[in-house]
């Protein structure tokens, strides 16, 4: 039990290389927090699962909407305008107008259906043939079926529709894309609902993590008091709890990704079968790397925020007595 020399005994505490020490301190604290989670695997897993499901839910619904939009997006421009022309127009004028419209850049093709043709089709299909024969004049107008070119945006589609309507020869324009637009409006509402729901779920995650951290802090109250008594700052005692929150968020986010990908995997077979029935090659759009990263990132952020919020509030209150 040798006593150190005088000068040595009273030498002040010196820190060497603040950054590397800061780094190694964080490294050991993070590993320590991880160890704590591993020591209570079941309860840790429960919390991670709650976070994962809460993150996976909006992510999955978002994916469904994204796919619905991708599929229906193709319908937008494939559908045609039926331009009914004024009764008094002659057949040749109507056909000429059709050719004129066809030259527009935003129009792919124009099909001309004369009044006579239309009446003939109607007679065949409706079964009112005899009755229609009694009419003195053909009540049907000449019609142009305008197919917009694929390069149209929804804005230029509206413009095209307006211009067709405003032609002096036009009686009426019927848009067959209206229901697609309604469908898109519904998808937009669903999108909004997801955003609202996701915000609520984010709060739920913060509460879950906050509550877990609060219990953790209560359990380690003595330890916190002792460390504060020997000179630890609030930041120092807070650090392990922030790391705990970080790990919860990270593992929750990763598990959420796994859940979503597993769901996609389960749906792949049925979707392929459906696509086969329609003889199309529709495949499910998966998450982009950015979206996948965002889920994990949001998990980590919520974990850190939840634990920081709770730890900051409780640390101040725990003072040595």
């Amino acid at each position: 039990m040798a006593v150190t020399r005088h000068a040595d005994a009273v030498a002040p505490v010196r820190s060497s290389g603040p950054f590397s020490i800061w780094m190694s301190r964080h490294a050991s604290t993070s590993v320590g927090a991880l160890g704590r989670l591993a020591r209570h695997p079941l309860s840790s897993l429960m919390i991670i699962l709650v976070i994962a499901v809460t993150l996976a839910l909006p992510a999955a619904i978002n994916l469904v909407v994204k796919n619905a939009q991708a599929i229906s997006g193709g319908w937008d421009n494939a559908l045609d305008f039926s331009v009914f022309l004024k009764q008094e127009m002659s057949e040749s004028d109507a056909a000429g107008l059709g050719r004129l419209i066809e030259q527009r850049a935003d129009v792919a093709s124009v099909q001309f259906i004369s009044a006579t043709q239309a009446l003939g089709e109607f007679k065949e299909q409706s079964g009112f043939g005899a009755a229609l024969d009694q009419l003195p004049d053909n009540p049907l107008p000449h019609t142009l079926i305008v197919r917009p070119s694929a390069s149209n945006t929804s804005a230029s589609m509206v413009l095209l529709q307006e211009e067709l309507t405003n032609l002096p020869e036009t009686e009426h324009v019927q848009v067959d894309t209206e229901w697609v637009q309604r469908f898109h409006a519904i998808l937009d509402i669903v999108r909004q609902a997801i955003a609202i729901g996701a915000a609520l779920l984010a709060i739920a995650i913060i509460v879950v993590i906050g509550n877990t951290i609060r219990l953790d802090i209560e359990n380690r109250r003595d330890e916190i008091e002792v460390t504060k008594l020997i000179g630890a700052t609030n930041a120092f005692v807070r650090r392990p709890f922030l790391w705990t929150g970080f790990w919860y968020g990270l593992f929750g986010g990763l598990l959420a990704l796994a859940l979503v990908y597993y769901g996609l995997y389960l749906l792949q077979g049925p979707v392929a079968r459906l696509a086969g029935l329609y003889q199309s090659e529709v495949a499910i759009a998966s998450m982009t790397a950015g979206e996948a990263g965002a889920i994990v990132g949001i998990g980590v952020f919520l974990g850190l925020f939840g634990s920081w919020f709770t730890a900051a509030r409780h640390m101040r209150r725990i003072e040595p007595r």
Partner: protein
Amino acid sequence: MIQLENVTKRFPGGQEAVSGLSLSIDKGEMAFVTGHSGAGKSTLLRLIALIERPTGGQVIVDGQNTRRVKRRRIPAYRRQIGMVFQDHKLLYDRPVFDNVALPLIIAGVGHRDAGRRVRAALDQVGLLHKEKRSPETLSAGEQQRVGIARAIVTRPKLLIADEPTGNLDPDLSLEVMRIFRRFNEVGVTLLIASHDIALIDKLGCRRIALADGRLQAPEEEEVDEWL
């Protein structure tokens, strides 16, 4: 090292733990605070450690007026002082080594340097061979020595101890006091609260007697002992 000027600590209930106390402890001194429980010994040490703030008067430690130490600066202030407690206040979820290393980790001392200092501190209290043990497996006397090692590992100029031998038998108490004595010999100022007057007399150190939060003349105290 420590100056108290007319210090009063009144608790919200109105009772005064320390009343108009003035005293001075020099650098390099080893002094004991004695008195019955409730005499104000612990409060005095808690005022020095800034666990409590005085309601009146001034406490000056190593030239710093504690009144001017802001709440945010308390941790840095405490790191200058070594503290030993009657109940050791060890962390039982980690081995002896980690307990002693804690003040160094808080202070941001590098890994290798910390290891060296922890072993030096454990060596000084004679527990070098038990660094990997859990504190729970140690005797009360050994636990207290771990507490002392933790208090001196940062090499503070001032060490305060609240009833460090309160739970120990006379032999172990003497052993602990000898350790304190050795720190004093290398220049550490010590202020120790204790009620073990026989032991203090054996060491021949200065005695500050407190009663009802005030200084008491030694003769009065002797009489008090017999009553």
